[in-house]
């Protein structure tokens, strides 16, 4: 759409005889060497081109910063419309939603400078291999890139991740909609880790904030060490602590032990201390098995290994 508008603007200029070639030489405005483009392109474009000057890309004192053609290509055909062309050709590379530039080439323009650091594994990432280009999420010309602000970043992610959009609005959630965390608190969307996590596994990622679960414990609860997501849905659920299911059903996904662990779900009709009736109400099984992530009790008691101490 941006490109179409650009073409339309240029067409209008041409129709009035105000062709680019007739303009006097102009100074660069916001990027080194941008006069080639800013003699025609300005804030009238859908994406205000000059706002890039407010960004790190627009820091002209940094010799590494690009000019327009670093990303869009020399675009000679676009700048100097061939005499036999009925329409002004598009720039060599365009980045809008309806861009015909292949994704690899669009991302390649960014990776020419940004292939290091956390983007080393970009080519192995799910985003890269689903034709998600850098510009699919990033606003290069905007003063503030929405996806780099944790308050507004989820808007961008939820464009595709609809399930997670619904989940973060459930009553038990990480503080994403409150702006205290963002998707990138846990996910490196440029990386090649499983589930594109910031660390090498689910547990390692969760430990960055929940280090008390790391143990090792005297009494380990194996799924805790293996994968927090066996019991928790970190994007949000209707249950406390983002549990995927309610006790006793959650616990009975693994435990078929006789006696009270086999109880059916049920609400007691009155006060009781019977462990046959307390698996659903209040904290459910965790009413007693309260140290469910692991216990450090060395008490010489059979219950020490059952996360009650």
């Amino acid at each position: 759409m941006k490109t179409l508008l650009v073409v339309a603007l240029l067409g209008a200029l041409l129709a009035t005889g105000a062709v680019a070639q007739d303009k006097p030489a102009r100074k660069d405005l916001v990027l080194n060497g941008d006069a080639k483009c800013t003699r025609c392109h300005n804030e009238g474009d859908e994406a205000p081109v000059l706002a890039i000057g407010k960004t790190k890309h627009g820091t002209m004192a940094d010799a590494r910063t690009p000019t327009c053609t670093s990303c869009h290509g020399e675009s000679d055909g676009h700048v100097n419309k061939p005499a036999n062309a009925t329409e002004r050709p598009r720039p060599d590379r365009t980045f809008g939603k309806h861009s015909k530039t292949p994704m690899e080439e669009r991302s390649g323009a960014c990776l020419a400078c940004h292939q290091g650091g956390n983007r080393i594994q970009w080519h192995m990432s799910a985003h890269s291999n689903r034709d998600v280009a850098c510009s699919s999420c990033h606003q290069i010309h905007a003063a503030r890139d929405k996806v780099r602000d944790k308050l507004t970043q989820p808007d961008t992610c939820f464009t595709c991740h609809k399930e997670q959009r619904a989940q973060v609005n459930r009553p038990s959630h990480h503080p994403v909609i409150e702006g205290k965390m963002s998707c990138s608190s846990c996910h490196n969307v440029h990386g090649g880790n499983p589930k594109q996590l910031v660390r090498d596994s689910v547990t390692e990622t969760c430990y960055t904030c929940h280090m008390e679960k790391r143990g090792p414990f005297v009494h380990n609860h194996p799924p805790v060490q293996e994968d927090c997501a066996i019991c928790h849905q970190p994007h949000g659920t209707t249950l406390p602590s983002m549990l995927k299911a309610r006790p006793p059903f959650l616990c009975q996904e693994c435990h078929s032990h006789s006696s009270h662990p086999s109880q059916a779900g049920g609400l007691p009709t009155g006060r009781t201390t019977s462990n046959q009736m307390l698996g659903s109400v209040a904290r459910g099984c965790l009413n007693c098995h309260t140290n469910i992530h692991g216990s450090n009790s060395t008490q010489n008691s059979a219950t020490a290994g059952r996360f009650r101490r």
Partner: protein
Amino acid sequence: MGSKRIFKLTALCAALALAWGPALGQEEPSAAELSKPESVVLVGLGYWTDDRPRLGVYDGMQEKGPYFLLDALISRRDDATGTWFTLDARNLGLDSREFRAEWLRQGDIGVSIEYNQIPYASPYTVMTATQGLGTSMQRTPTPSATSLGEWQAGTMREGWSAGFYKSLGGGTDFRVSLKNEHKEGSRLWGRGGAPEFAAEPIDSDTRQLEAVVSHAGKAFQIQAGYYGSSYTNRNSLVDTANINAAGTTLTNPFYLSLPLDNQAHQLYVNGGYNFTERTRGTFKVAYTRATQDEDIPVGTGVAVFSGAPTHLDGRLDTTLAQLGVSSRATSNLSWLASLRYYNADEKTPQYRVVQPAGGCGTCVDTTPLAFKTLSGKLEGTYRLTAGTSLIGGFEYADQDRRVPVGNLNAAGVDQQRYVPWRVELQELTYYVQGRRSLSETLNGSIRYGHSRRDGPDFTLTNEAQSDLINPIHIADRDRDKFRLMLDWSPLQALTLTFNAEYARDEYGHSDARPYGLLEGSATLYSIDAAYSISENWQVSAWYSRDNAKATQLGQRNANAGVATAEAVKEANLEDIGDTFGAGLKGTIAPRLKGGVDLLLSKNVNKYPETITPTGAGGVFPVTGGVTTVPLPDIQNKMTRLKLYASYALQKQTEVRFDYWYDRWQTDDWSWLFANGSTFTYGTTTDGTQVLQAPKQSANFFGVRYISRFQ
């Protein structure tokens, strides 16, 4: 890819959206103004008319009352040297306050400091007479108390971070960051020894230090770093007991252990090399050692087995090695392949912790765990035409799962095991995806994936009934996933997006091992629409419906104490969510703009369970005149409405008015008895009740003065 607005509770969000745009009615700015970094300060007052126990858990505005609103985003750049100073300060008047300040000479050197508070205020009000909640000594009243006081759980995370960056030249950078977070408060807990209320005391610090050297050249990029983290807990043991009205302890203390200090050190190297313009290889290796070797606390008078450890000497070594190659073999064909080895190997010594004097039927040993996973992936993408591509791939994972056995019985079965174990697990996944531009305005993609997980026979537990289950995370499983996406722009001003997703799991089970999850499914439909009514008015809306189902089979034992029959249970659990969001924003008058955001959410959870007796006895347990009834459905409803208007006073100043409405409604029975009365802990002890208002609503009025400058 466009983006759709979602509702944000935080006061700053919508204000920022306005603040970063040019003020209405202002003169056309110069090119210099348009390209110079911009700053904004927002200061104001807000008032919530009522408490918001559920919807205010994280935002620092849970309680009714006035709030001071102050946010500032300062961005200054010295164009001559490329030196930036930025300050991003948010919610300074609230408990959720945070700021980040950075000085950066771009491409050379920089330092930053950050402060961040994350509050969590429990949505429940606890009425209790338990003493010392949230401390290391807690006393539960006996007899059960009737005179209860109000208490609320909650935590505050308070984090400080500092960072340093230096360019070493030639594409090589050095970065170091240090973060310390203190967490204090308490959370709902249980006494463990009896179903009585307690609160876990939380007073801990976590620290993270990461130092990285990165080099990025045209062909070769590498990153080598150290990542260290540590956890310090100021509490290690909680002493609980029952006391009488005179404060005399009536029972031996029941001690609850807490997480102990631990630390981890990781070294890693991450690199990539462009073999050609079309082919790239990547690798990553990392080694982590995590340890926990604190004094294991033992309560006064507690019996400890002579062989039990006083220090765990806990150690978890994690090794990662991965390789990847991606290539665009031809203009139409690209592929990638990867291989990953991940070994989390706990090397904690195996100790005997519990051994009764009379024999070893209930002995308990430590159980150091090890999970070693080798996984690989191969994927290809073929572009049939400019707008049509086909993706196919498969993934394979092989996991070696190890836990030592110690307390063996005569048959060689580990007597302390409660859940069947599987020493190996394999999963094979394959998928295909097609993507096509159906026209200039319509794009679509469809994906199907199937995976099968299985492994060798389970190792047995100490109990025949426990061996009848297929544990969810290691059970045989067939998984099918479908996904359909359509993106249609019928008009230049209108975009519609439609998503449909369906996943189905079937878990392995047999006559010999019939229990556990039998099947599950998840469905999601979502539609988004965005329409530009005019240059000055935009509207967007979206609706999602998701539905997750699970069928779970189990055995319920006969129990003479509560007069229940042996039975087979089948639970058909369901979670249904409907979420609707809408937004309208635009220009009301030349100097006045405004908008409205609405979010409606409804979640229904269903817990039907059939209990089919297979022997003599009752269907539901009965004892002491108390029985249980089947679990009712739970419905949660949420409404969040936000209205705002911003009036441009001058070229760079605005005044902004906000009105928000929050509403929460629930019939959650988690803390209720079957007749709807409040659940009460204990019979002869405790008496604690946990309350949640079933209907909560509040209005917010806010006014802010916004000043922008360069």
